Structure formats: C-alpha cells, structure tokens
C-alpha cells in the first residue's frame, strides 16, 4: 500500500469531518505540522477537539484554526501568547481542558499503546484531580488519568521514508512521537522524504507502522523567543 502523498491537501483527503478529535505534535511553534494545519484551515472543517501542548500564536500554528472558529475545544498544558484564543475563550466560544504537560504526554502514549488509564501523582490535591478516581499505592495517593486517542494525528518529522519511518531533529521531536501512536490515522509531514533504506535503521524514532500517510513539505520554522548571547 502506498503511503506517499504529494502534499498536505491530498494527504488529508477523506480524513476530515466536523466534530473530530485531532492530536497535533509540536511544542510552542517548534516541530509543528505547519502544512497540515494550513490545509485543515483551508478545508473549513469545524467543531474540532485538538489535543496539543499549546495552541500556537496569533496567525501561526494552531492559531490559524482559531481565525474561522474551527476549534471547539483544546486539550493543552499551556495556551499563553495567543490573544485570539483568549478572546474566544472569554466569549465562551472555545473550551479548554488543561492537562499537566507530562500527563498529556502520557495520556497520548497510553492511548497509542492500548492502555485505557494510568495512575499518576501529578495533580493530586489540585483542581486537576477533582472528580477523578484516587487510589493509594504504598502509602502515596495517585489519580487516575485516561489514555487519549484521536481520530487523526498530525505530526512533523525531520526525515521520513516511503514506509513512514520517521526521524525527528533535536527538540522538534517533543510530542510528535506520542501523537503519532495515538491517531486512528496518522499523517506525517517531513522536511525530507527519502527512499526506503536511506534512514539509519537504529535512529528511527517512530516506526512506520504508526504512520499511514506521509508527504514532504516546506517549513517556515518560526521562532517564538529569539534569545542570543554576544558572539
């Protein structure tokens, strides 16, 4: 079965529907699937629930999907740096479910690994644990968190091959491997699509079994906080 597509639009063909849940890789603007986000914007699909650590910035990343009110709910750990997000949230047009960053990562990992729930000490005694099952193990209290699956996962890698094997670059890896496992269908965009056999087999982060569709795209890689020292 051929996994390779020419661009984001064709790679998403037949996958999008109103009310769907999407898991999106990236941390801030680092390692985000820029082309897929743009294409989801152009599709006009609505009422989305998006699991992503952040919600992009005004006019870039997932912030693009807010412009036409396509997002119903975000599952995120941090949503600063986004005025439009705050406007829609305060107007009641956008719901937010805060997850601690590690809990969000583990929910996606568990979801993709066939684990429906797990216990963690993170958030015990806080708002996050309200209404959730608590359980004591060895004298310490833990809260039950659920595995998280998505109808679609959109991820961005550095290099990928025609079998969907992916290698990420530096901190652009972040949530991408977890998202890739959590999607019923996973679409990957890569900076460089290489023939099968060209990747170092011992350096593949996401094995191709998790990736159904792949394409090569151009990436702006916008920097959120440009900080430097004197040369």
């Amino acid at each position, binding site marked *: 079965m051929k996994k390779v597509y020419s661009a984001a639009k064709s790679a998403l063909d037949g996958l999008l529907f109103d009310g769907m849940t999407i898991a999106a890789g990236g941390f801030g603007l680092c390692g985000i699937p820029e082309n897929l986000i743009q294409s989801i914007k152009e599709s006009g699909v609505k009422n989305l629930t998006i699991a992503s*650590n952040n919600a992009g910035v005004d006019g870039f990343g997932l912030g693009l999907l807010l412009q036409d009110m396509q997002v119903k709910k975000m599952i995120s750990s941090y949503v600063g740096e986004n005025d439009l997000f705050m406007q829609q949230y305060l107007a009641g047009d956008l719901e937010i479910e805060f997850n601690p960053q590690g809990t969000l*990562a583990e929910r996606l990992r568990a979801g993709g690994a066939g684990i429906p729930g797990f216990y963690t000490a993170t958030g015990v005694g806080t*708002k996050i644990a309200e209404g959730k099952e608590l359980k004591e193990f060895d004298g310490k209290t833990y809260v039950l968190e659920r595995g998280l699956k998505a109808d679609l996962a959109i991820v961005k890698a550095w290099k990928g091959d025609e079998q969907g094997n992916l290698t990420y670059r530096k*901190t652009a890896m972040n949530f991408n491997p977890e998202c890739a496992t959590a999607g019923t269908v996973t679409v990957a965009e890569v900076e460089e699509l290489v023939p099968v056999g060209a990747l170092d087999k011992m350096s593949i982060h996401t094995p191709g079994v998790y990736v159904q569709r792949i394409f090569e795209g151009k990436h702006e890689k916008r920097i959120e906080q440009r900080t430097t*020292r004197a040369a």
Partner: protein
Amino acid sequence: MPWDRNQMAERAALELEDGFYVNLGIGIPTLVSNYVPEDYDITLQSENGMLGMGAFPTEEEIDPDLINAGKQTVTELERTSYFSSSQSFAMIRGGHINLSILGAMEVSETGDLANWMIPGRLVKGMGGAMDLVAGVQRIVVIMDHANKAGESKLLKKCSLPLTGQGVVDRVITNLGVFDIVEGGLRLVELAPEVTMDEVHEKTEAAIVI
C-alpha cells in the same frame, strides 16, 4: 539588606550538588545557571525534551529546532540527548531528576505550592509544573517573601489553586532560607542585616525553631 534577584539565585546555587540532574523554572530560577560552581558537573534538563542544555546561541548558532521549555533558543553540549515528551516526563515523574528550582505565587507551611492560576484572571496553564513538583526528588522555591501589597506569600494555607500538595522542601526568599518541617517553616539562614523580627512581621506561616 534583603537579597535581590541575582543574590537569591546565587544562594539557590548552593542547593546544587556535584553530579546533579536539575530542572530550572522560568524567571529567577533560570539565573541559577549563572552561579554553578566551575568544578561541578551539573546537567540541566529542559522538559520539552532535552538533557544537557547549553547557553543561549550566538546569532549564527540559532536553530529553530533547538529551544528550551520557555520556548527560547538554546544550544546543545557534547553530553546532550534529545527525547520525546513522554520520555521527558518519565524521568521527571519517575524521580530521576535530583532537583527542581522554581518560582511561586504562594507556599504554605505544609509545603503546598501555588504558581499556576489566579481565579478571575486569564489562566494560561500549568505547563510541566505539576509534574515537576510531583516527581522531582527535591523542590526548592525561589520567590519574594511578600507580594507587591506587602502581604506574606508564605501562608498557613494557600489562597490560590494549588500546583501541588505538600511538595515544597525549601523556600529561598529575599529575606532568607526556610525549610518546610513538621509544624511549619524552620529558618535556615537570614539574608544579611535581616532580623528575625522582620521575618516574623512579614510571615503569616508558622515559624518553628
């Protein structure tokens, strides 16, 4: 004289031990990296997926694929490793990181920490703070002793929603260093020229001797 931001960071650097893996929060805690003793082997963890974080890059070194948890551009070191978010929080939640130094809005005498939301104000989220305080071996807070209105930030009970319950080990304020112990805060050290009377006056939490 109470300590200023840099002096608080310098004092916090004394919490480091040779060989430690450390996660530093955003703000004053970041300044601690300026005071790491030269003969110490310290590895900084950045929870977005990096162990062995280097300095900010020069203009030529900037790499958009290389940022820290504050989304700032950084550099790598010889020892650096990169990993995914679940791996990053496995090492945090699993107790493999020795020390986290972070800022706070309030700390209670039982070690509760509040630093992620103020009801009625815009809430941006907790990021990785709840995971860090729940999982890292030792939690040291750096914060001003009182808020801008002069009210104590060391309280009997936190008024703000918690980040973690009973998680703080030590607090470094502009007035001194305090440990959370049975019954309240135990004074470890006073900043120069700060008196115990001043500490009592500016502290709501119980202070035990």
